[in-house]
């Protein structure tokens, strides 16, 4: 068990080493490049706030995904649920674009969560009633939602005074997440993420639903034998997951962005899959993992400025983390094998 939570650290160390080697091959001083990547970005207060800002959506989505993954439901379309949540939440925010009121932000947030939930229900319903593969359906829907957003921001929802830029009006101040500190971009959305962590811990470890989820993940046969309502559970985990992704989307548009445009998420929905794995599907592990992965986003931005390398390099690190993490699981597999061998020996 200790090894299970230890291997993510091995993966991170190997990723840093691997990154150094790639930088060396590309002709950079690896130590210096890695410093720009992992230390410079968080060496001041502003950087630290940016880290939390990027970790917030990652943490929220990964928490939601942990429900799906724990119960063996492969929702990989969180990016789509995030986008659709942002569309629905953003739509509500645009309704109130020239109004102020304390009730607006809660409405916008609620709309975002419901939007994500509805969008996640599509693969869930198709899976439960038509036996379709949820991996492919949720993935296809990512592109559908992104195209829908694109249509809305260039078409019906584009800012009438916006000179045909592909963006909507600015939201009113009442639809914006309150900032936590003057001059920093970190906003109240982080409390949503923390609440999600607490709530998910409670649901997963203290309720009957959580028990059902875990049993179904370990063995579908056992779950059936125990008489769990499999279909309802699939719908529920997808709804939780979609709501979390929708919240993340709404947090982005009401937080740092303040309107809808094409680029509301740098693939947070896909990267959160890495976060969920790195955090071992454990609520508190996910907090840690979201900070680590958020750092790769920040590092890529810093490296772009100081080393003139494209910011896509963040994805090299994200990909490597997952590679190494999955590979290091082999150690666990091995240990299980050794243990089971020992047990067999004892029996004979």
């Amino acid at each position: 068990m200790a090894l299970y939570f230890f291997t993510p650290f091995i993966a991170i160390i190997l990723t840093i080493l691997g990154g150094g080697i790639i930088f060396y091959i590309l002709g950079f001083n690896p130590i210096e490049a890695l410093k720009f990547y992992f230390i410079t970005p968080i060496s001041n207060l502003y950087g630290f706030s940016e880290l939390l800002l990027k970790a917030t959506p990652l943490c929220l989505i990964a928490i939601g995904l942990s429900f799906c993954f724990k119960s063996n439901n492969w929702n990989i379309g969180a990016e789509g649920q995030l986008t659709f949540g942002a569309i629905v939440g953003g739509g509500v925010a645009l309704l109130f674009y020239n109004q102020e009121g304390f009730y607006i932000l809660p409405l916008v947030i609620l709309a975002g969560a419901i939007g994500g939930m509805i969008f996640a229900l599509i693969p869930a319903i198709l899976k439960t009633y038509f036996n379709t593969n949820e991996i492919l359906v949720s993935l296809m829907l990512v592109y559908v939602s992104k195209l829908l957003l694109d249509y809305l921001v260039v078409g019906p929802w584009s800012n009438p005074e916006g000179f045909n830029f592909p963006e909507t009006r600015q939201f009113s101040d009442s639809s914006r997440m309150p900032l936590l500190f003057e001059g920093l971009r970190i906003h109240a959305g982080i409390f949503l993420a923390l609440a999600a962590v607490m709530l998910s811990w409670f649901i997963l470890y203290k309720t009957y639903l959580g028990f059902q989820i875990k049993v179904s993940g370990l063995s579908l046969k056992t779950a059936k034998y125990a008489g769990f309502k499999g279909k309802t559970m699939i719908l529920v985990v997808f709804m939780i997951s979609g709501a979390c992704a929708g919240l993340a989307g709404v947090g982005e548009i009401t937080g740092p962005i303040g309107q809808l445009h094409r680029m509301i998420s740098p693939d947070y929905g896909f990267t959160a899959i890495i976060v969920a794995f790195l955090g071992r599907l454990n609520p508190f592990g996910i907090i840690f993992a979201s900070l680590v992965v958020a750092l790769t986003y920040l590092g890529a931005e810093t490296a772009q400025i100081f080393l003139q390398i494209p910011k896509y390099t963040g994805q090299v690190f994200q990909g490597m983390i997952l590679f190494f993490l999955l590979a290091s699981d082999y150690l666990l597999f091995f240990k299980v094998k050794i243990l089971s061998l020992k047990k067999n020996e004892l029996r004979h």
Partner: protein
Amino acid sequence: MSLDISFIGILIGSIMASSVPLILAASGELITERSGVLNLGVEGMMIIGAISGFALMVITDNLFIAIVGSMLSGVIISLIFGFLTQSLLTNHVATGLALTIFGIGLSAMLGKNFVGIPGKEFPILFSSLRESIPFFGPILFGHSIVLYFAFALPFLTNYFLKKTKLGLVVRAVGDSPVSASNQGINVILVRYCCILYGGAMCGLAGAYLSLIYTPQWIENMTAGRGWIALALVVFATWSPIKVLIGALIFGGITILQLHMQAIGFRIPVQFLSALPYLMTIIVLVVISRDSRKIKLNTPTSLGRIFYKEK
């Protein structure tokens, strides 16, 4: 009227050209999936093929080396996936996603110095016939050799899977790895080969984009084609000939939306772009409802980890 007909000929020719990367990547992925392996890394392998093909063309000034190199780089990058999923028994979905994310990042890193360099003209075959025959000329002639290969590939794949012993082995491994293994087939080796073959085809698909279709290097230039190729395999219910038809439909939608924009057609472009994805979902629903239909061609053990007790 003759103008219209020759225009339609050119239109069909351009639809064929735009479907080539989809045919290549989907045919490769089809073999991989038929062996029971779900590799979601298509997009990543394609973009790696695109940058390595283009970089090799700039460095060596030799298109043959560029094409072969792009396939090799696809093989190398898919080897990571193969090693992880087959030797270290990792989850196919997660590993494939990691491969795509990694590939997009690595290609941008490698391609940093190749942005803005103009590409080289790729030789086309039978260019004189293209001009002289009115309707069929632009359809049949004046294409690159890669296009002809791509259009032959689904038929070759079909023949391979249905008529050869090796094809039978691949299908057996995908349908029931345990029985295949009991028959003395090295399941892991077969799956490795299918993964690497898929990588080579995805690499070629990427090189087609950066060397022939739009001869230049742009970051993230595959622009989701890898995901469409993945959808296409499902859309085609794992049958190679249907991959060809599906690729023409999906490629046709891409070309149509360009023309519709030009003549000011009122359907928003985004709805047309979303069609391939929506159609794939509908096909999935239709084939999944009928369990007999899905069993006909679907590799039964798709995405499941096979582990041989020693």
